[in-house]
């Protein structure tokens, strides 16, 4: 059965204060070599057994576009992995 690992992040140019503050805090701790830091949301979906890879890919894109991300401010990436039921 297929599993989708989806990561939703803000688009470039959208203020992400959380990422900024984490980066600052790491800098204060002495980690000065961090050029960029992003935060996002991880969503994992396990699909029913009867869906093949291409159906799962189409469905994941539909969910990503329709509800899991807001395309005005966010983008998403995903990978599909086959797991044992």
């Amino acid at each position, binding site marked *: 059965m297929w599993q989708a690992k989806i990561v939703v992040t*803000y688009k470039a140019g*959208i*203020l992400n*204060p*959380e990422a900024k503050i984490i980066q600052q805090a790491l800098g204060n701790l002495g980690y000065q070599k961090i050029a960029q830091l992003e935060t996002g*949301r991880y969503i994992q979906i396990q699909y029913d057994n009867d869906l093949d890879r291409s159906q799962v890919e189409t469905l994941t894109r539909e969910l990503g576009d329709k509800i899991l991300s*807001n395309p*005005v401010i966010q983008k998403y990436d995903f990978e599909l992995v086959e797991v044992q039921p």
Partner: protein
Amino acid sequence: MKFGVVVFPGSNCDHDTYYVIKKVLGAEVFYVWHKETSLRIFDVLILPGGFSYGDYLRAGAVARFSPVMNEVVAFARNGGPVLGICNGFQILLESGLLPGALIPNAGMRFLCCSVHLKVGTTDSVFTRTYQTGQVLRMPIAHYAGNYYADDDTLKRLQDEDRIAFQYCDVEGEVSDKGNPNGSKLNIAGIFNEYRNVLGLMPHPERASESILSSADGLQIFKSLLEKN
């Protein structure tokens, strides 16, 4: 005139809104459960503040798929006035009835305080009893109230006179100082292109009686009662 106040699981300003319309305004008002699919009897619909579905995923993202929302969208497309307050504004943006999005406040803190607002335009059924440039005081209470839209959308909102309210200082100056949450152009509320949908982050229902420190919000509800 019949007002409908939509109740989602997690709405918490529905009672305040209902109270203001019934007791302060003296108009007819009904709660509308989010599973309702017939809204024909209503003249005005209000999406109240709160934390619908716990704000999970994104504020308003889940409520936007409630059964009632298809009807709210149809009602708005037919020209019916729809007012979204705070979480209601977030739901209107997620549903595409208004452009842009609300992201977490620039300071990463939940803000609960009084703010000053400048009336951007009186050209709407919601703002017609105000004066353009009038300075109002209303409370805000939100974590994700930082209005974002791309530059083209912002320009369109300006060109089409669709900015209903902007955060300002006590003098009415629209500046960074008066901007509590980092919103682009200090935007606190906007209209759709037909001016029958208004979304705003401040709470007019909590500023509708002077004994509760401000009655500046009541005029939004009063404006809706006025005959064209």
